C-alpha cells in the first residue's frame, strides 16, 4: 500500500492489470504488502490463504532456518512467476523495509509478543499466531504497544470468525439461552500438552552452522540453553518446555477461553477467581468466575468424543465450547457441528461449515488494515483472554485458589502468584 521505497524492481512495461484497468484487477497501490516471519506448518496455511487474494502481495520471508527460507521463497516465486521474494535471516532487515504493510508471525510462541511489539514499532500491522504471549505482563505490553502505535493486530484465533462458533456466541449473547450461567472451554489435553511444561533440558548437541540455523536467534528472548535438534523439529519440538511453551491451558485456551470471554460479554476483562483441580500429567480443570457471576470451566480435551457423567459436556471435536443458560445450552467445536438443548432445536443449524474460517479471519484483518478499524481478534481482546489463561496457569502451578483484581491486574493477597506474572526476556529483547 505504500508507494515509496518499494524494493521489488519495477517492470519495464506496465500491464493494464497492474494499473487496475482490467476488471477485477487491483492496482499495486491498493495492495496490502505482506511478509512472513517464521513460517512453518501453521504459518503456511496463512501464506496459502494470502496468496489467493488479488489485493495482497507477499514479498519477503524471514527465518532463522535456511531451509524454511528457501521453501517459502520457492512457493512464493512459483505463485507469482518471478524471483522477487526476498529472504532474510534477521527480522530487523525485513522490518526496515518501508514497502511492507503487514507481517505474519508464525514462529514458536515465545517469540510472538516481542516480535509483534517490534513490528508495531517498525510501523507494521501484525497477524500473529496464537498463543500471543508468554506471561500476563507480556499480554498487557502487547495490547499497550498496539494501542500506542496505532497498528492493527489480529491474533491467529480464527475461530472468532468461524460460523458455528459465532452462531453459538450470538445465542449466548442474545438471550436465547436465558440468563447465561456457565461457559465451558476445552483446553489442551494433558496427553499432548500437560498444563505445566517441563523445566528440564535435553542433552547438548553440536550447533549447526549459523547460516543453516542460527540457534542464538532461534532462542531469542528465552534464556540460554544448549542446542538440541529436537527443540527445532517441525511439529512442535519446542512444545512442553517451560521457556518455550505456555502449557496446555494456553495452547487451546487461547482459542476457547477467548470465545468464552466473548460469549460471556467479558472481552474487556478477565476472570476474577481461579480454582484448579487435577494434577499435571492427568485430567485437569480450572474453575473460574467472572465478576458478573458467570462461571468459566476450563477442562482438558482428553475426554473428546465422550459424554462426561459430571456435567453432560458432549465434547464436539477439538477446541469445543459450551454455553449454558438457565433456559438452554449450546455446544460446538471444530468441524462445525452444533448441539443445542431441546427448546432450541428449531432455531439451530445442525452444522455450519468451518472450511472458510481462516479465509474469513484473514479477510477481517485485510479489511481492517485498509479501514484502520479493529478486527475481531484484536490486541486488547487477545490480551484479556490470554491474561485469563495465564492466571489459570499460575493457579494450577501453585495448586491453590487465586483471586484476581482485573483493574489492578494483580492477584489479591498472594505475593508468590504476583511474582509469576512476568518472565525476564533474554538480552537485548524487550516488550
Amino acid at each position: 500500500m505504500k508507494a515509496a521505497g518499494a524494493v521489488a524492481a519495477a517492470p519495464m512495461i506496465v500491464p493494464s492489470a497492474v494499473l487496475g484497468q482490467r476488471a477485477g484487477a487491483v492496482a499495486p497501490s491498493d495492495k496490502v504488502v505482506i511478509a512472513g516471519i517464521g513460517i512453518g506448518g501453521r504459518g503456511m496455511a496463512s501464506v496459502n490463504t494470502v496468496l489467493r487474494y488479488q489485493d495482497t502481495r507477499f514479498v519477503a520471508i524471514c527465518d532463522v532456518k535456511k531451509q524454511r527460507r528457501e521453501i517459502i521463497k520457492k512457493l512464493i516465486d512459483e505463485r507469482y512467476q518471478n524471483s522477487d521474494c526476498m529472504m532474510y535471516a534477521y527480522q530487523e532487515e525485513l522490518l526496515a523495509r518501508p514497502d511492507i504493510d503487514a507481517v505474519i508471525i508464525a514462529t514458536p510462541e515465545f517469540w510472538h509478543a516481542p516480535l509483534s511489539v517490534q513490528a508495531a514499532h517498525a510501523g507494521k500491522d501484525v497477524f500473529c499466531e496464537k498463543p500471543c504471549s508468554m506471561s500476563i505482563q507480556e499480554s498487557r505490553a502487547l495490547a499497550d504497544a498496539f494501542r500506542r502505535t496505532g497498528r492493527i493486530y489480529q491474533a491467529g484465533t480464527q475461530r472468532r470468525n468461524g460460523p458455528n462458533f459465532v452462531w453459538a456466541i450470538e445465542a449466548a449473547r442474545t438471550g436465547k439461552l436465558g440468563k447465561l450461567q456457565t461457559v465451558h472451554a476445552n483446553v489442551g489435553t494433558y496427553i499432548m500438552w500437560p498444563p505445566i511444561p517441563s523445566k528440564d533440558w535435553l542433552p547438548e548437541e553440536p550447533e549447526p552452522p549459523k547460516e543453516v540455523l542460527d540457534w542464538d536467534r532461534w532462542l531469542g528472548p528465552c534464556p540460554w540453553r544448549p542446542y538440541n535438534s529436537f527443540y527445532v523439529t517441525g511439529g512442535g519440538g519446542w512444545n512442553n518446555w517451560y521457556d518455550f511453551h505456555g502449557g496446555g491451558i494456553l495452547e487451546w485456551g487461547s482459542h476457547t477461553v477467548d470465545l468464552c470471554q466473548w460469549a460471556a460479554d467479558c472481552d474487556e476483562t478477565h476472570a476474577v477467581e481461579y480454582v484448579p483441580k487435577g494434577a499435571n500429567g492427568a485430567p485437569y480443570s480450572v474453575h473460574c468466575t467472572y465478576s458478573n457471576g458467570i462461571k468459566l470451566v476450563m477442562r482438558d480435551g482428553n475426554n473428546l468424543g465422550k459424554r462426561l457423567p459430571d456435567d453432560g459436556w458432549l465434547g464436539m471435536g477439538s477446541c469445543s465450547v459450551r454455553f449454558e443458560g438457565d433456559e438452554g445450552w449450546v455446544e460446538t467445536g471444530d468441524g462445525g457441528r452444533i448441539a443445542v438443548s431441546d427448546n432450541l432445536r428449531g432455531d439451530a443449524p445442525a452444522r455450519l461449515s468451518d472450511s472458510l474460517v481462516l479465509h474469513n479471519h484473514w479477510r477481517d484483518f485485510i479489511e481492517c488494515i485498509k479501514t484502520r478499524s479493529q478486527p475481531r481478534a484484536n490486541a486488547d481482546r487477545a490480551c484479556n483472554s490470554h491474561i485469563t489463561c495465564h492466571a489459570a496457569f499460575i493457579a494450577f502451578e501453585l495448586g491453590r485458589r487465586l483471586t484476581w483484581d482485573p483493574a489492578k491486574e494483580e492477584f489479591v493477597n498472594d505475593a508468590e502468584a504476583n511474582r509469576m506474572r512476568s518472565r525476564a526476556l533474554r538480552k537485548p529483547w524487550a516488550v
Partner: protein
Amino acid sequence: MQNTGQENPTGKKPASSAGGRVKPEIPAEFKAELIEKLDQTALIRILAEHGSEPAAVFRKGIACKRLAVIGTKESVPSLAALLGDDRVSDYARDALELIPDPAADQALREALPKLKGLLLIGVINSIRRRRDSKALEPLGKLIYGEDAAVAGAAALALGEISGSAAAKILQGALGATAGAVRADVAGGALLCADRMMTENREGALALLDFLSRPDIPGNVRIRAMHLQVAAAASLKRPRTAPSPK
C-alpha cells in the same frame, strides 16, 4: 497452531514426540525437580558454584527461576554477582526483576557502570521492568554514550519509568541526539506520556503536545496527536464484566 476436528480427535499424540521424532532422554544433570525443592539458602549456595559448562548453567538457571518466586534480599548479592555472566545473567535478571525489595533495584543500578553491550542492555531492561525512578540519572547519561543500542534501551527504560523527571530528560535528549538514537528517544517519550496519563494527566498532555511538533519523527508525532485526541475524549477501557443477559 490450528487444530481441526479430524486432526486429533482422541488426543493420542503424546507430549514426548514431535514431527515423528521421539523425545530424547533427559540427562540426570538436566533434571530440575530436585533443585526446585531446595530452600533459599541452598539455592544461594548453587549460585556460588564454579563452572560455566551447561550443567553448571542449568543448576544456576533453575535456582534463579525458583528465587524469582521465593527469593528475598538475602539472595540479591549472589544474583547480582551473575549479571556479568553471559549465559547466566538472564536467569539472574529474572529473579532480580521479581524480588520485592529495594536491594534488587540497588544491585541493578550498581551494575550499570560495570557492564557493556548486551549485558548492559539486559540490566537496563530489568530496571525498565521494575520502573526504578532512582535510575533516571544514570539512564539519562547512557543516552549519550557511544553504543546506540544501549542508548535506545536507556531511552525506552526512561519512558517506561515515566514521570515528570523522565519526561524532562527525554525532551532534552530529543534536542541533543540524532538518527536511530533520536528515534528511540522519541519512542521513549511517547511511552513516557502514555504511562503518565493515569498518574499525571496534565504532564502527559503537555508531553504529547511537545511530541506533536513538526520536528519530531513522523510516526511518533502522528501517534502523539492521536493520543491527545483519545485523552480529550476521555476514552477509558472498562475493566469489569457487565451483568449477564
